């Protein structure tokens, strides 16, 4: 029998029992849809994170106090005290060849109030250098003055989300808001930044001088800082800057040669690769789930094909009696199983693509539908069909024609 003829015969046989064929396909449909959708969503998240990481600037270095393990957790007791404000000043003062700007950054949650409006947001203590590091312009108003930074002045810059929540359409610059019961003058409005790499709203923030946050809000006289955000003068200088910062901080912290760092410097490439590691772990997990559902789908097909072979024993006998070889019968049932899987796979691709679109729109997720992935999934589904159909087809091909003809 020709392949073309076998395909036609297969589709006709499947069409004869549409309900059973649909049920047999269901497992594959769901498996393929799940694969297509999860891959599209995963790829979308990956692409978006990569774009936003790149938007952070490839020149970025972040220093955390204490030694960190690979996953970013701080280790060692009391290590958090090791990074101080004067470290930031020293880096800015001494490493002018490679470093563009150094900003201390500490964060705290807090309620902000203006008139009858109040809003829970993130309070961030830093310096003007942070605006340089993040390349974040001020839309309206002015940055902090040196004097304000030194004296812990009650001034702040607000992000666009905070402005909308507190002021609506009103101009915020010059108004006094209350930050955790401290009156604070809004001296500027930050330009809109949008969503961050982890999905957070970057405009939902109030920036104030680092001293203001620590002395007046947190209420500490300590000079310990949570992190330093540093930008190198160019991406080529990131490695040099990293080495120089490392040397300077070791010297300032009086670390003996061979002693481990009591701080952790990360550049964007490292952060990206850490993120990629996490993504590939996730992808592996999704892949395993997808594989399992494909296997379940294939078992569904195998089951239906076994029933079908038993039911059609007499048909097999007839075909053999008039000249079909075992091979012809084998091919016929394999093609049937493959057709089930392929049609199921095609439906699954459609369903997966549709579901992906809907999810993307409803959840505002970035999704990437890749035709390559769909074709690959279809091929895998087809192969699963062949594997699933092989045993039933083999049984059919080994039937004895006389016995098969006698089958009731």
């Amino acid at each position, binding site marked *: *029998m*020709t392949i073309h*003829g076998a395909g036609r015969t297969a589709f006709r046989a499947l069409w*004869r029992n549409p309900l059973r064929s649909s049920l047999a396909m269901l497992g594959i449909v769901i498996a393929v849809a799940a694969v297509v959708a999860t891959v599209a969503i995963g790829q979308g998240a990956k692409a978006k994170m990569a774009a936003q990481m790149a938007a952070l600037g490839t020149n970025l270095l972040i220093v955390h106090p204490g030694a960190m393990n690979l996953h970013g957790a701080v280790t060692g007791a009391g290590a958090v005290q090791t990074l101080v404000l004067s470290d930031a000043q020293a880096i800015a003062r001494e490493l002018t060849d490679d470093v563009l700007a150094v900003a201390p950054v500490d964060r705290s949650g807090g309620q902000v109030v203006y008139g009858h409006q109040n809003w829970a947001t993130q309070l961030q203590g830093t310096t003007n250098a942070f605006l340089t590091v993040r390349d974040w312009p001020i839309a309206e108003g002015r940055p902090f003055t040196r004097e304000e930074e030194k004296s812990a002045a009650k001034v702040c810059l607000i992000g666009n989300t905070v402005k909308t929540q507190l002021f609506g359409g009103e101009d915020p610059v010059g108004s006094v808001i209350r930050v955790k019961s401290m009156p604070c003058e809004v001296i500027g409005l930050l330009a809109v930044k949008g969503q961050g790499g982890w999905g957070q709203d970057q405009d939902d923030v109030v920036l104030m001088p680092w001293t203001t946050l620590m002395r007046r809000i947190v209420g500490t006289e300590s000079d310990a800082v949570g992190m330093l955000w540093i930008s190198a003068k160019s991406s080529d200088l990131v490695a040099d800057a990293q080495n120089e910062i490392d040397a300077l901080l070791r010297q300032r912290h009086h670390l003996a040669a061979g002693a481990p760092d009591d701080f952790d410097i990360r550049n964007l490439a490292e952060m990206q690769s850490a993120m990629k590691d996490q993504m590939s772990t996730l992808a592996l997990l999704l892949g395993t789930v997808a594989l399992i559902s494909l296997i379940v789908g294939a078992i569904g097909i195998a089951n239906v094909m076994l029933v079908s072979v038993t039911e059609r024993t*007499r*048909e097999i*006998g*007839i*075909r*053999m*009696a*008039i*000249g*079909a*070889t*075992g*091979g*012809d019968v084998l091919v016929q049932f394999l093609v049937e199983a493959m057709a089930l899987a392929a049609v199921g796979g095609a439906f699954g691709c459609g369903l997966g693509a549709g579901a992906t679109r809907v999810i993307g729109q409803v959840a505002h997720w970035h999704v990437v539908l890749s035709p390559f992935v769909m074709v690959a999934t279809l091929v895998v589904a087809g192969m699963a069909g062949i594997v699933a159909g092989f045993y039933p087809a083999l049984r059919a091909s080994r039937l004895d*024609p*006389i016995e098969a*003809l006698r089958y009731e």
Partner: protein
Amino acid sequence: MTADTAAVIRAIDLAKTYRMGDVEVPALKGVSLEVLRGEMVAVMGPSGSGKSTFMNLVGCLDRPSTGTILVAGQDVSRLSRIARAKVRGRTIGFVFQGFQLLPRTSALENVELPLVYQKVSGRERKRRAVAALERVGLGDRLDHTPARLSGGQQQRVAIARALVTGPELLLADEPTGNLDSATSVEVLALFQELNDQGLTVVLVTHEPDIAARAKRIVAFKDGHLVSDERIRQDRSRPEAA
């Protein structure tokens, strides 16, 4: 090919023993028989005498336990499954008592089926299937499925299917067993007509008057061939046809 190509069937000491668990059932115990080209042979004998067993061996549906069977000069007794399938497809046409047509499939497609396995192209297949159906008088029933045909018509479709490959030999195991007597006469007349056109026909029957229309009657009993007589050519056409 042997010298005596005139022998379409040549069975030599043919035996078949079925095994059911520990029990051995000898169904055929050494049968030698020659059927010449153009003959029409009726096979008779009581139930269980080995007629179907013999037909299945000749029809390459089964293999003998011992002995040799040649069909159209080819020794088929030791052929592989695949080779036997090819002989069934090309050399032999088999008609069964129960018609054995594919359900929910038109007469035309049923008749085309053997050609599908010989990789005959679609157009040629259809042409030959239509010709075969016309030959058995069903040229106007091409699209009917078995469920929409009478028993006699179904058996004609089955005969057309057996003819469509242009076989050397037509085998029929109780082809009229499921038909009423009037229809049996018609179907038998068709076999006679095909035989008159030169086709070698071997058919199993229990009915002496049907057997009487053959040129030769062989009888089985208990796995042995017990009689073999050629009938003088006083074969009369059935009056009531």
